[in-house]
């Protein structure tokens, strides 16, 4: 097994050094993205996303509760991820480990820092009643690049989410309206292998990468979140190259999300 792992490692590194990948993709080429918005009907919002063979489902539910004392006029969003044993032979049962926590927090940060949700509109009665939005990430098949797949699924699920309108007394009415989403943050993740940058790493590439970098951009091209992962390092130029690519790839993927959501309406 160690021997096999070493051969795989060497093979992928040699390919990467030559600017090639095992599945024939270009270094900056994403796998196919397939989005099914509104995949579920018991959730308030949902999306099924396939990124190549990686499959994830995000469900959005909201509840009603009291606001934090320091932001009495704002609702709250919280993001959780579970690396369920179904998705990979390497995942185990139990409370979220550090990988699941990092995944959830990087996805969360993109949504939060881009102010994608108008949290003021989640307020029902200032200081008393606000909506609490739960974004729950479920991994079905881990074939690499969970951050991007889950980031895409999370914002798509939010875009499809509906919420009940409350009257001025704080009582629910019969009307529902869309969750107030005003931005589409998109994470782009890079692997650095043998000194070469590539986007959308497949799981075998992930297992041998030196370093990982995620850059999340918003609709106006702002960078809203970054996260270097794993045990390697990046030069400033590599980071800036990744930032540039993230802006263009983010824009491209944003259109795919929009198209999928529009089609489903």
């Amino acid at each position: 097994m160690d021997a096999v792992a070493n051969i795989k490692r060497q093979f992928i590194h040699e390919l990467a050094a030559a600017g090639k990948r095992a599945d024939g993709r270009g270094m900056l080429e994403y796998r196919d993205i397939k989005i099914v918005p509104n995949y579920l009907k018991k959730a308030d919002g949902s999306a099924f996303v396939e990124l190549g063979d990686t499959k994830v489902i995000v469900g959005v539910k909201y509840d009603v509760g009291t606001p934090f004392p320091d932001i009495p006029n704002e609702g709250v969003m919280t993001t959780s991820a579970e690396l369920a044993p179904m998705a990979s032979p390497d995942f185990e049962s139990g409370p979220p480990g550090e990988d699941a926590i990092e995944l959830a927090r990087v996805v969360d940060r993109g949504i939060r820092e881009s102010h994608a949700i108008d949290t003021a509109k989640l307020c029902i009665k200032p200081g008393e009643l606000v909506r609490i939005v739960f974004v729950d990430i479920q991994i079905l098949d881990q074939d690499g690049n969970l951050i991007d797949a889950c980031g895409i699924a999370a914002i798509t699920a939010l875009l499809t989410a509906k919420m009940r309108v409350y009257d001025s007394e704080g009582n629910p009415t019969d009307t529902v309206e869309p969750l107030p989403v005003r931005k589409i943050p998109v994470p782009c993740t890079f692997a650095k292998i043998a000194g070469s940058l590539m986007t959308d790493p497949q799981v075998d590439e992930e297992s041998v990468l030196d370093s990982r970098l995620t850059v999340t951009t918003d609709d106006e091209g702002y960078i809203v979140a970054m996260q270097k992962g794993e045990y390697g390092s990046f030069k400033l130029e590599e980071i800036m190259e990744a930032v540039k690519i993230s802006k263009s790839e983010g824009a491209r993927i944003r259109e795919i999300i929009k198209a999928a959501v529009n089609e489903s309406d």
Partner: protein
Amino acid sequence: MERCDGRKKDELRSIHMEVGVLKRADGSAYVEWGANKVFASVYGPREVIPRFLARNDRAVLRCKYNMTPFSVEDRKRPGPDRRSIEIGKVTAGALAPSVLLEKFPNSMIEVAIEIMQADAGTRCAGITAATLALVDAGIPMRDLVPACAAGKVDGEVVLDLCKEEDNSGQADLPIAMMPRTNAVTLLQMDGEMTEEEVEEAIALAQTGCRQVYEMQKAALVSKYGGGDE
């Protein structure tokens, strides 16, 4: 009698099955059963961790049943609750009689069932899907294990309760079986039934199982091509 969704008393909800839907798992299946959406995966036979659980005369079968937080009306906290743990346990009991565990001593077979959407009958849908995932993983089995519930609604014994019926009904009785030998491998019941109603319900649930059995075979054929199964 009129059922809320117009079904006849011995009619199943619409069921859709797909085998081999995941890449990483050794075996997998997806079952849509009415409004239930259920994935099942199988890993193994593989090394037993932790070691002290290993058995030198057979494989250990572990079944995990999980509802996603967004699968039900009110968001469920992530992680196992008492209901999930019990269902995992009876699911193992439902599948074990059919799996040739004795072929794989000192190893472990892990079944995971994830409920994406729940609408009554998730444990039956889960067992049905898990059976397909076991076959997809190449685990040798004595028989397929279909599962189906019967129950009592408005005083009458009917097949395959949906959520609305489950809430208003007087009893629910899910079973799983190995149709070749008529062996019932899952049996639970809660509610209130006479001895006669219990007998009627089990018999009815068995007819449901037989229909599910045919669908399981069809799903496997459509994945693996014809054959004499």
